[in-house]
């Protein structure tokens, strides 16, 4: 181990962490919106898979990454509408409909991949976009400011989401609907409307999370590309106590452990790779059991709204 931990390695670990955290940020902040309004969307991983495929395929065919990104967002929106229809309008059990959505995304992305592409191909994803001046700072510049637009946006999303949830009238409505839907209803707020909107915001962001894997981070598509990252994102929402800043902390923690184990493997540390790969997941479970603050959980989480039940 000695000699492995140099400044370059640390800088590399952090640079990798920032990339790895990107899909988690999009997906988990999106899920924060859905859950704040009272809907647990367990289908995030399925949305990410199908959107990752859509982004990859459209980019491959059209040659435009922007079109690919748009396709991912549209797929996310459609799947969000489906989730809302089933769990908000038809009041189905949210956990079950979310799992259904996941299975659909998993199977459909796999099928379309086989039919439309067939073999694993790679594309040129989003290029690093060094930020003038900032990227020239020694060490830090290389670590933080030489990455691509999707990564920057993921981090900018954190304060933006915080601002929307805590400072705007929309955020107030979302939180009211998640905490006390009957109260929101009595003030003439459309509970189901706000839930549709929140689930769809979450799903579009999950779509972008998928795209960030297939056209920015890995630049390829294969079966089950996400390997359950959407589920980790749902767990991060609990870990973060339904706050974008908490989610950021969770995403960074998870990603730095992941980045660390990747670098250790690359550098040939003598840790069995299966154990190393397991580390971040193990950490998630441990962190979740000790950190979740139930007091902040939206009181109406998982409960469909029916007027007149008190």
């Amino acid at each position: 181990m000695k000699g492995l931990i140099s400044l370059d390695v640390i800088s590399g670990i952090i640079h990798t962490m920032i990339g790895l955290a990107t899909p988690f940020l999009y997906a988990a902040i999106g899920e924060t919106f859905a859950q704040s309004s009272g809907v647990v969307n367990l289908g995030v991983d399925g949305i990410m898979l199908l959107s990752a495929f859509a982004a990859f395929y459209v980019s491959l065919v059209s040659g435009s990454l922007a079109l690919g990104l748009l396709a991912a967002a549209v797929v996310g929106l459609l799947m969000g509408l489906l989730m809302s229809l089933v769990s908000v309008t038809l009041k189905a059990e949210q956990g079950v409909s979310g799992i259904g959505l996941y299975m659909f995304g998993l199977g459909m992305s796999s099928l379309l991949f086989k039919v439309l592409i067939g073999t694993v191909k790679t594309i040129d994803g989003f290029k690093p976009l060094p930020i003038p001046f900032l990227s020239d700072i020694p060490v830090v510049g290389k670590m933080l400011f030489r990455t691509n637009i999707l990564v920057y946006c993921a981090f900018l999303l954190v304060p933006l989401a915080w601002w929307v949830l805590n400072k705007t009238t929309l955020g107030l409505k979302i939180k009211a609907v998640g905490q006390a839907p009957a109260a929101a209803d009595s003030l003439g707020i459309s509970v189901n409307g706000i839930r549709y909107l929140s689930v769809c915001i979450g799903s579009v962001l999950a779509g972008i999370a998928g795209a960030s894997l297939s056209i920015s981070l890995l630049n390829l598509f294969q079966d089950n590309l996400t390997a359950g990252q959407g589920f980790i994102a749902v767990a991060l929402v609990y870990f973060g106590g339904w706050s974008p800043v908490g989610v950021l902390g969770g995403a960074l923690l998870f990603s730095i452990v992941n980045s660390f184990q990747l670098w250790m493997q690359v550098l040939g540390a003598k840790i069995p790779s299966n154990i190393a790969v397991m580390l971040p997941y193990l950490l998630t479970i441990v962190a979740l059991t000790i950190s979740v603050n139930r007091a902040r959980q939206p009181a109406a989480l998982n409960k469909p709204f029916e007027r007149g039940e008190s």
Partner: protein
Amino acid sequence: MSANARSDGAARTGRVEMRNIVKCFPGVRANSQVCFDIDPGEVHALLGENGAGKSTLMRQLYGMYQPDEGEILIDGRRLVFRSPADAIRAGIGMIHQHFMLVPTLTVAQNVALGQPSARAPLVDIKGVTERIETLAQEYGLKVDPRAYVWQLSVGEQQRVEILKALYRGAGLIILDEPTAVLTPQEVKDLFETLRRMVAEGHSLIFISHKLYEVMAISDRVTVLRDGKVIGTKLTREVTRDELVKMMVGREVKEVEARPLTPGPVRLRIRGLSAMGDRGTEALKDIDLDIRSGEIVGLAGVSGNGQRELAECLAGMRRPLAGTISAGGRDIGAASLNERVDAGMAYIPEERMRDGAIREFSVQENVFLHDRTKAPFARGIFLNFAKMRSHAAALVRDFSVKTASLDTPIKNLSGGNIQKLIMARELSRKPMVLVAAQPTRGVDIGATDYIHQRLLEQRESGTAILLVSEDLDEIRALSDRIAVMYEGRIIGIVERGEASVEQIGLMMAGVAMSDAMKG
């Protein structure tokens, strides 16, 4: 412009009329050809038992339900309210019995919720706060706009609800059982606020089943029974007894406890302390004796330790310190079954959670405790014939209205469920009875019946602890009244020794010696 831009004090809603309203739910005709009207500046009371259809009627006026038949008019113009938003726009506000507040938001955020903002898309917290302060000043509604709702007392939460309606410019405000959760002092303050609102030109609909309040505040009163209007009268031309008769359909005499000399101490509590659900100390050093043939009423604002005390006695909460003895036998650490054997009986506050199993039949609910005892069981076998005849006898003796012994208990009305629980507990001839909120949500007929039974039990020598938030009930039945405040008993008074106001002061935390001076 948003509603909050209206000029102060000018909020008026015209004459509102509900004509021939019919509303049915599966299996129930909740409102049947109901006509109801209210003039500007009037206080119109809506009186009726639980389940008479008062709330249903008002929820239609507030747009939460749509009537199956009939129409709603304001100043002769027909309006259709598809949601509360439509009703709010028409100048109608509603203070719900179960407050419609978001506990995790501040007062100002709750008031601003769903209203257009002057600084859209941002919430205009500063503007809303100032407006709340103006309204609070004008109507005597003291509350801190910056406080979180979960930090507020019940009385303060109600003020927030009223502020919400005023902020939205409501000219007509519906108050659904507004006094149910208040202390006598808070009721006084509320009435003061309501009078100011009327003086400003607001009209009020006051839903209640408490007659003296209706007599005190209203101009007119409409009585509903079984979904139908029994009559509308000018309040000054009607007596309390007439209203009761309209409400219940028969005469109800007030219960009266015969003077009795209590016997030996049956329940002795010394130095009892216990934690509450939130992990803070909810009971602090309680000392209390209850004698045979005595009812001790435990009064207090909800959440001051009454529930925890009842649960400690019932064996559902573990005390931190102190002793409880029943008939000289220490039961502080006894299991539920041992307590039953020691002669304790318990009528729980949450009857559907702790007192009965919803899906079980009437008969099965009778045998939640005694299923292992002779003559109902021998070894591992149950004697169904014995159980059935015993259950049938209880249902008959306590006049529980049920379709059959096999009906799931959830299909019974609250009053009948309570009668059945009471039958079960009393059939064991307990030495000590803890009755927590025995008549909450129960209609006048059943309440009257339950009161009679409690008094009978007292005469037969049972020591009874009656926990209730209904001061009238406490005063009518209790030989002594113990008042709880913040987990302590801050005073014990004999029957007739203290007035409602004095007890109210103690409920608000004023020491007994000071309260009794006033």
